[in-house]
């Protein structure tokens, strides 16, 4: 294991890639609502490994991983929705006394509101504000047009504002 992508001298080995991106992919799955984020990331790497010999451009490997994680998280949350009959993945965290303090209160509010957004809106926000992907990068990852990315982002932010405004103590 740990082989380089064929025909791409200087390319990272699979092991390098795993060590560099496994945590990030696990966090991405977690932020997208998968309850088994580590399993999603593991399977994404297994899929990547199965295609490893056919990849000629290692610069696209991370994009492939991201797309795989997004798709698998989507499947997982869809499954959870059916099983749990709840619209989103998990209830918002319990608000401890510490969390209620100042900044953490806002973060808890935002997490709760993020859980209320549609799947695509949440995906767009996570990819943009956590992974700092460009509009083109988000479009490539989600398989949608850049225009759709912009519109979805706009609507997602509007929804965030609206929901936060609705929350007691939310943004005014």
């Amino acid at each position, binding site marked *: 294991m740990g082989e380089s992508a064929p025909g791409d001298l200087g390319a990272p080995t699979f092991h390098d890639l795993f060590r560099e991106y496994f945590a990030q992919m696990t966090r991405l799955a*977690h932020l997208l609502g998968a309850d088994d984020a580590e399993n999603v990331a593991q399977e994404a790497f297994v899929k990547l490994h199965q295609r490893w010999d056919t990849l000629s451009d290692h610069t696209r490997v991370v994009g492939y991983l991201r797309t795989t994680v997004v798709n698998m998280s989507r499947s997982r949350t869809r499954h959870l929705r059916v099983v749990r009959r709840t619209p989103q993945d998990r209830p918002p965290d319990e608000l401890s006394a510490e969390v209620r303090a100042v900044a953490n209160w806002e973060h808890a509010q935002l997490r709760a509101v993020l859980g209320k957004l549609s799947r695509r809106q949440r995906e767009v926000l996570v990819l943009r*504000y956590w992974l700092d992907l460009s509009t083109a990068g988000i479009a490539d990852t989600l398989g949608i047009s850049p225009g759709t990315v912009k519109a979805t982002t706009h609507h997602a932010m509007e929804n*965030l504002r609206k929901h936060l405004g609705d929350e007691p103590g939310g943004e005014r």
Partner: protein
Amino acid sequence: MTDLERKLAETLREQAGKVTPNLDAAWAEQQRRQRRPPRRRLTVLVAPLAAVLVVLTSVLLATRVNDASPPAQPANPGQELKLAKSEHQPFDHMLTQGDKAILTDFPGQTDMWRAWAYVGAQPNASDRKLFCVAALPVGADLTADAPQYGTKSPQCAALLPDDGKTVLAGYVGETGGPLPPGKAVYLLSSTMEHLRLYNAQGELSQGKLVDRVASSYQVFLADVVPGSPPVRAEVS
């Protein structure tokens, strides 16, 4: 970046920071998974197989249904009906004997008609009994001056010798006749209680006792398949 965007990015970073996988353990797990024989979901294999099985079973069943011989009928139940052919006999040329039986009412072009059954004889052959069916307007008595339905009424047939086991005479309804299609009437001796009729396809029609006529006979009426008259009968 707006304040909300900044807070959102912070929130996402904070939430993501809670996930801290053990990379060494994860790499060991990844290697284990890579060695795992490629498995397909059971449904990927089972679903097409199940579909093929369903199709094959359906084809097999359809073939069997087509090949299957028709349900076994009792081999030639009862006795063959060999009755005298009925003919038109003008009512005023007849002598009626005993009671008459009302069979059924049916619509004509403008009026309702009533079918009667009776036993009679020609004046010059009073010992040769005839079983007759006549249709008159509803409300009219069975008399010589009553109008008859169509040109075939009454229809009469000679009775077979009464051995107490067979149908003595009968008439199958027909278009323009004194009994409408789909009905048949039979005369049996007074000792019989049941009449079962079978057409050429072996389909059963149960005769229903309508009335007694001429003291010693019983009239049975049956619903039959139009165009497929009874050819065999069981009496008991």
